[in-house]
């Protein structure tokens, strides 16, 4: 399988770019592109941002995930505190980032 040229992968590694993540994802969907997003390490705090649900609703269920280990390392309960907008199977590993690298023809770090 080769990367989809119509698909944008967003790797979120900073806890201060929610406006950009939502802005870019919304613009990409508006332009008819597909979006895949992964939040890692301290960026998982963005799941508590009021706009996170809007982002989650914008993406297909299999196209947005957070790093479960990061969520635990940052002090949250990965089982009892699944972020609003996500379901338990969207709590993933770094392999999801590997999926972005493989599947997305375009890529952005935020």
């Amino acid at each position, binding site marked *: *399988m*080769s990367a989809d040229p119509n698909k944008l992968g967003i*790797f979120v*590694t*900073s806890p*201060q770019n929610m406006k950009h993540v939502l802005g870019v994802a919304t613009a990409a969907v508006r332009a008819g592109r597909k979006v895949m997003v992964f939040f*890692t*390490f*301290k960026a998982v705090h963005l799941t508590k941002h009021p706009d996170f649900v809007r982002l989650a609703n914008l993406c297909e269920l299999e196209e947005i995930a957070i790093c479960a280990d*990061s969520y635990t*390392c940052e002090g949250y309960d990965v089982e009892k505190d699944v972020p609003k907008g996500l379901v338990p199977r969207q709590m993933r*590993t*770094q*392999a999801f*980032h*590997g999926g972005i*690298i*493989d599947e997305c023809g375009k*890529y952005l*770090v935020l």
Partner: protein
Amino acid sequence: MESKKIFFLLPNRMYSGDAVRSTLGLSIENHFSYSVFMYGEFPKFSEYVKENIDWIRDMEGDVFTMGADAPEGIELTPITLEELGEKMREADFIIPYGLPKQSKTPPPACSEE
């Protein structure tokens, strides 16, 4: 799946340890994956971090240090800014990870000292 060449750039000590884990995550996915510690912004080198560094190397990646010597007992590959730039011309993905370098020295509350 084609193996890609991927550089993680780490100028902030609060993010550099986890970025090594993320680098290894892509090594395991069969990519050529590289961490670059910048300006001596090293994490605490726990056994876990040291093992991750060894594993990245075993998987044909590397872990560099730019702008500072490696701490004693930690094996890192020295690289200059210019060498890094030239190497990254061949990269498929460049990942400026986490936050930029801090301008202040960490206070005792969060210092590794």
